[in-house]
């Protein structure tokens, strides 16, 4: 089996707050924790800056790129969201303001699978579900308010385009209906419910050990929900069987999770490496770290070197290595699917505070496991 090393791209020395790729992964929208979103284009495996999207006046918190309709949506601490469309004649991205009607920062945005709606999470305890109103030629938002008690930190759409999962700072993950009359067709019944008018609460879950919820994700089929919080647990909820399983990880908290397929979840966060969780038998369990970066061999330290170091820098120990032994050098805050469809992700991208954007192959998983000896 081939070993594909992760592809490391360094765009910036500072943090990357969010990133999104276009449909064929040749263009990348990325924000370096500023009010500007930069779009890079790939030619001959080199990323070059093609456009900058300047309209927000506070740091951009989230960006999403609709693959089929080629529209970008951005949201920011300035309480606004913009939908960007590429004007074919001038080859420039044109912003359209969205009426969110929120009085705190917008924190997270995602297009729905059909790309006819998007949801914006915010600090004003509501989710703005936005859709295009033909009559007014304007994007308008409808609020999901109850029973949210604090800032929403993450969202994920169910594949049926109606259900929406939200991870919240009030220690809860919830599943809502974001059904918009006139936009959506009546969804088929699912384990989450049958009658789904707007703002129906289809489920409210907690890990049981506190901790605000950093990330939520529906499984590829949408029948199972996973979320992770600052208590370093991953909770998997199956509404059909009624089971709620919390895995207490022995590692630092995860910031973002992604389903590779129905049986595997990747989570990454403060430990700077993606970790794999697998469904085995009837239970979910931690499987392995997917970052196989090996610790660099210690350079042989001679007595002479040691004395010289003590003399010049007042250091007594041999190693003054501050490097973290993973590809990412700091917290990972976002994982996104890169290649393959939703039910079988072959590659995924991670970005974080160290300014790196890394593309990982799931081939690594099989290779890593075959290297394990018992």
């Amino acid at each position, binding site marked *: 089996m081939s070993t594909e090393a992760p592809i490391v791209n360094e765009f910036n020395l500072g943090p990357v707050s969010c990133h999104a790729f276009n449909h064929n992964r040749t263009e990348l929208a990325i924000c370096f924790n500023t009010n500007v979103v930069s779009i890079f284009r790939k030619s001959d495996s080199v990323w070059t800056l093609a456009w900058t999207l300047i309209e927000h006046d506070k740091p951009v918190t989230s960006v999403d790129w609709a693959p089929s309709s080629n529209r970008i949506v951005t949201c920011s601490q300035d309480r606004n969201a913009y939908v960007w469309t590429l004007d074919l004649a001038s080859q420039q991205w044109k912003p359209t303001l969205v009426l969110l009607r929120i009085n705190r920062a917008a924190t997270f945005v995602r297009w729905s699978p059909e790309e006819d709606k998007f949801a914006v999470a915010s600090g004003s305890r509501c989710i703005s579900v936005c859709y295009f109103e033909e009559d007014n030629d304007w994007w308008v938002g409808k609020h999901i308010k109850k029973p949210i*008690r*604090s800032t929403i930190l993450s969202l994920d759409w169910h594949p049926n385009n109606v259900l929406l999962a939200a991870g919240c700072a*009030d*220690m809860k993950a919830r599943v809502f209906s974001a059904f918009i009359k006139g936009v959506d067709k009546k969804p088929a019944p699912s384990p989450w419910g049958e009658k789904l008018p707007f703002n129906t609460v289809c489920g409210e879950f907690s890990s049981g*050990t*506190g*901790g*605000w919820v950093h990330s939520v994700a529906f499984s590829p089929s949408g029948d199972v929900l996973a979320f992770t*919080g*600052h*208590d*370093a*647990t991953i909770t998997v909820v199956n509404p059909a069987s009624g089971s709620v399983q919390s895995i*207490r*990880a*022995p*590692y*630092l*908290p995860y910031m973002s999770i992604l389903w590779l397929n129905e049986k595997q979840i990747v989570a990454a966060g403060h430990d700077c490496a993606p970790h794999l969780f697998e469904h085995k038998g009837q239970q979910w369990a931690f499987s392995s770290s997917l970052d196989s970066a090996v610790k660099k061999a210690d350079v042989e330290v001679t007595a002479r070197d040691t004395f010289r170091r003590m003399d010049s820098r007042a250091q007594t120990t041999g190693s003054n290595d501050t490097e973290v032994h993973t590809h990412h050098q700091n917290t990972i805050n976002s994982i996104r699917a890169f290649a393959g469809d939703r039910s079988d992700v072959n590659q995924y991208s991670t970005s974080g505070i160290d300014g790196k954007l890394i593309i990982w192959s799931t081939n690594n998983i099989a290779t890593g496991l075959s290297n394990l000896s018992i």
Partner: protein
Amino acid sequence: MAFRKIDIDAMEEDAFGQDEIDSQEIGDVHSQEVEAQVNSRAQEVRALLQRGDNNGALSRSLLNPPYGRGLEVVKLKSTQIVMEVLNSTKTADVAQLVKNLPSEEQDVLMKYLYAGMAAPEQNSSGVLLAWHEKLTEVAGQGCIVRVITDRRTV
């Protein structure tokens, strides 16, 4: 940066406060019931310790921790019961005892270790640090993070 010290929640009529978090995470607390529980636990744990069953005594002492506010005296007593078990365990046995605990009880033990370290004049920090080291080896940093995030304190 004086504006950072302004309590913006004071302007909010419907703030998400400590009371609400407590009722969500802990539920109703009846202090007399909790006190009776802790007292009977103290006797059981001492009986187990006299029989030399440190494993059983540890699990028993970690059962049903007194969560909630206004229980300072009971919490102190409960912490002391756990401390008795920790102090009467041989250092060599610590690693195995910690390994035997299910992960929920490992988290509870970590809470008691930090509660114990908060009162260094009463408890031996050396013993606590030895337990902390062995527990972190087994339950990892995740266990420590959970002690910090969990509003249900001991």
